[in-house]
């Protein structure tokens, strides 16, 4: 059982949201480092 007595199949929606936020930050950092490499 996931937090709040939820089944994991439903709680997974919150995990996907967390993953999406991490993905956006990771992509922004990766893209910045790639831009710096290109400009050097």
């Amino acid at each position: 059982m996931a937090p709040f007595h939820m089944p994991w199949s439903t709680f997974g929606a919150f995990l996907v949201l967390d993953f999406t936020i991490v993905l956006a930050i990771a992509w922004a950092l990766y893209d910045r480092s790639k831009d710096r490499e290109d400009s050097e």
Partner: protein
Amino acid sequence: MIIYVGVLVVYLGLLAAIGLVLSRQSKSAGDFAIGGRSVGPWVTALSFVAAYYSSVVIIGGGAFGWKFGLSTLWVGAGNVLVGTTLAWIVLGRRIRRFTENLDAMTLPGFFFGRYGSPQARIFSAAVTGLFLIVYNVSVLKGMANTFEVLMDLAYWKGVVISGVVILFYTSMGGYLAVVWTSFVQAIVMICALCLLTFMSLKKVGGMTALVDRLNDIDPGLVNTPGVWGWAGLISFTVIVSLGTWGMPQLLVRFYSIKNDKMLRMGTVIVTLGASIALLPYLTGAIARVLVPELESADQAIPSLTALVLNDWGGALFLAGVVAAGMSTFAGVLIIISSSMVRDVWINGLGRTLSPAAELKANRIMSMAVGVVSLLIALRPPALVLVLTAFAWAVIASTNLWPLLFGLYWKRTSPRATLWSMILGVGAALIWQIWPRTGLPALPPSLAGVHGFIVGTVVGLVVIVVGTLLGKPASEARIRRSWTGQP
């Protein structure tokens, strides 16, 4: 009631003032249509959120949460992941660069620049223009219905009040007014949804109590896919998430952002802002516990608002719902007017306009399209009401693949692109209209599939097969799209 009226008057006055101030900055058609490609990350990102989530999403999302329970949280998660973050990562940078290289200000303009097909430009402009008007009618109707429920205001008054304010600031200030008002509207929406969620969770006794009480009503309201079933849940999530990849009023945010650095920051900001997508579904599920007896699921959010918020909170929430509708309506208005003037009048019919005349034509066109939408919304004909159910699907089916393949596959054939648009839209329309034709019914397993899925599958097959068999656009067009060199 005085509090509701006071908050709305201040709020609508603020929007009109923004339009008036920014009207001085719209000096050319480029400023009017895409803000001169000078918009920063916060305004671009939050205006994207405001244009994406209309009042229909807030009220309708709440209705889905009330009917189907917590499994609907997946729709919100899909909106954030696919409809927002992946759209920004996959489409954002390329759309910005390609439209700059091709000097395109509209999606049909991009299709012409990339493929050299005047037919694709006209077809995309015509379908998008026609169905966006239909979409606008549904947005205006949603706003007026909210006024009706929360303020007991006659339907026609709701249509006229919201329509006139939007028309004023859009025709005066153009795209800059639309994004800046949408920025304000996004903040109001986020505050309103957070307040409603916090207060209703408090009322129900917290998240664990909510899950337990929903479980007591029906375990299908807690499990995934639960009472909705996989077919309904997946197809709805795909429509409202992947559909954004073909919606011009959202894609225009990528043309107008200042540079790549801003786009990067915008991707993080838009992801955080778009996270509110889960809240209408969650509050809808809370409403199922707190207001279980309703005549229609559409009353879930307004009834919950009346139960858990005081007059000030209710007024803020009404402003949030109206904000969601207005930002979507205004964004659509700019897209239709710039597309009609540039793609149909100037490039399609070969008329010449000076920069000042083009700006004036944009203002007049946005006013005219807005008035037409308003008049239709006052008493929508039955056909328009039928079409509103799949306007989103038709527009997305037209633009999705020609855009995505045009950005990533140099070989994509112009002729395959045109046929992908025509057959994709045709398939989506026929699929949706089929049950009303009196022809033999589709098998139950297929009948639940939305026209958008059918249209996009047909469009995908046509563009891939057609490209493999056909010829790509000229070398010069491909070089100009990718590098900006003639």
